[in-house]
């Protein structure tokens, strides 16, 4: 699936394809022309993807072929052993986690899961966790804490699920408890926003020592659509809201919300799973390594101080 703003690329690529065919059919040597066009195409792409508007990045972040948590498990870990359930009645499939190795390092890896088809999305609830999902995550965090395993979270969620059962079972409390208990963890916590990082539903897995976002991912207090319909009273103003909310990597870095941006393959992660996996794995290992000599108290202080500094006000 090509996105709207990718249409010019498609046109160039069609032209190249046409040239190739002509060359074959006629026996003419058009290799120079083709090379030229390809060069142009590459440069065009680079410029295009480096200058995307927030609303365009949003489309990449939400692309249906974007690698999901299960893809990353395959791409960057081995020996993954999934740990199911909250031990209290529910195994929320919107949050999956377990122990695994990244290279030779055992870690606890936990993430939200989006499906790639309607059928899958019914299973994973479009990556929108119930309170029970956050409680499962906390169980796994505490397991990691007991056994000294660094925690890696991969976040791609439009938010915590807004439903009747979710409210009845304490969606707010479940997230709040995670924020508080993550503050107490005595192991390194690395959170990566891989796609959508929307509101408290994302933050509930992201009270980390290091927070990274992928190049085309976004992190915000509310979806641009939600913001537009509340503040502009007009959901079609979502692109303006996306702009105003400053939700992409460079802005998040500027306001000290995140610690770094993970490069994506040209055009976005869905164009090259392997390359994306390699890059992500490298960044995770680098981050874990950074914390390897910290004491439990230092890790807690590091996390506290990081969030303590956030906010801009006059005093």
């Amino acid at each position, binding site marked *: 699936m090509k996105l709207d703003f990718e249409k010019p690329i498609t046109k160039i690529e069609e032209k190249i394809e046409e040239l190739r065919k002509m060359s074959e059919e006629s026996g003419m040597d058009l290799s120079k022309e083709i090379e030229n066009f390809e060069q142009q195409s590459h440069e065009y792409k680079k410029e295009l993807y480096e200058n995307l508007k927030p609303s365009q990045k949003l489309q990449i972040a939400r692309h249906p072929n974007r690698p999901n948590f299960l893809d990353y498990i395959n791409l960057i870990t081995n020996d993954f052993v999934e740990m199911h359930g909250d031990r209290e009645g529910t195994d929320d499939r919107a949050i999956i986690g377990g122990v695994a190795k990244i290279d030779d390092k055992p870690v606890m890896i936990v993430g939200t899961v989006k499906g790639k088809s309607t059928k899958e999305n019914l299973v994973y609830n479009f990556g929108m966790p119930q309170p029970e999902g956050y409680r499962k995550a906390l169980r796994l965090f505490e397991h990691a804490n007991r056994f000294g395993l660094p925690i890696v979270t991969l976040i791609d969620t439009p938010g*915590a*699920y*807004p*439903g*009747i059962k*979710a*409210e*009845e*079972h*304490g*969606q*707010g*409390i479940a*997230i*709040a*408890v995670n*924020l*508080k*208990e993550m*503050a*107490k963890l005595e192991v390194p916590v690395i959170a990566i926003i891989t796609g959508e990082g929307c*509101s*408290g539903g994302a*933050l*509930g897995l*992201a*009270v980390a020592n290091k927070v990274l976002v992928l190049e085309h991912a976004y*992190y*915000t*207090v*509310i979806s641009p659509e*939600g*913001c537009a319909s*509340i*503040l*502009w*009273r007009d959901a079609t103003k979502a692109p303006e*809201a996306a702009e*105003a*909310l*400053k*939700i992409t990597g460079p802005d*998040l870095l500027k*306001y000290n*919300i995140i610690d770094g941006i993970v490069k994506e393959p040209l055009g976005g992660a869905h164009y090259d799973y392997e390359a994306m996996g390699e890059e992500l794995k490298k960044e995770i290992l680098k981050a874990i390594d950074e914390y390897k000599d910290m004491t439990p108290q230092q890790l807690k202080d590091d*996390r*506290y101080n990081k*969030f*303590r500094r*956030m*906010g*801009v*006000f*006059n*005093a």
Partner: protein
Amino acid sequence: MTLKDWFETRKEEQIAARPVDPKIDDYVGKLWVKCFNCNAQLPRKELEHHMMVCPECGYHFRINARTRIAQLFDEGTFEEYFANISPADPLEFVDTEPYTQRQQSAKEKTNLNDAVITGIGKVEGEEIACAVMDFEYMGGSMGSVVGEKVTRIIEEALAKKLPVVTVTASGGARMQESALSLMQMAKTSCAVAKLNDAKLLYINILTDPTYGGVTASFGTIGDIIIAEQGARIGFAGRRVIEQTIRQKLPADFQTAEYLMKHGQIDMIAKRSELKSLLAKILRLHKHQ
């Protein structure tokens, strides 16, 4: 239909019929106030004498932070902290109106710098650190100032070994500060973690309405959670949920009673009981 069924239905209709956002300034300055619930015409003086609770039907009017503080604390004991902290506009946010202008209007309306008052005072002689939110300042939304003041008062309590009480009233996040607003959830919750480690009592009082980012952070991780009678409390708002699940919600959805039934709060208190209940709880945890 039995009488009981009829009564239950009527009650739910009444609850459902309440305006979702009765504003405080609807009645400010008026000599007579109409009860949102039973429509009784009430002399303003009498209503104030009853702590802004309808003497006819018990409906709890929303009150602002200053009124709440006057009701909760022993007279003259509340000392405000961090009053000078005021909002910035780091994102230079403009929707239908610039953020700075919204700040200005809110300040004029409430005479507050932002949506929370923090300080230290005494409740029946028991000293506590306290954060009281004000719904009238931009819907009690949590931005950098609310997060900072809540965190500072908790840190003050840690230094002075005081219990902490929050009184929340909030529509959720301060969208105009985007991720900076979101991070206040983490910041305040991390501060509460320190209260746990220090074994200092942390009590949440949830008042109408408490939603979104406050419900999902410092507002609901108290050792004891009290909801004021009549409060609506939730993570997601009714409209968002109705749009998502495409069905009508029960009339008592997200009421204090509903939350109690679903095990999320420790108790419900009438406004008139709140102070003595709070003092009793503080004394029960004081022996150490």
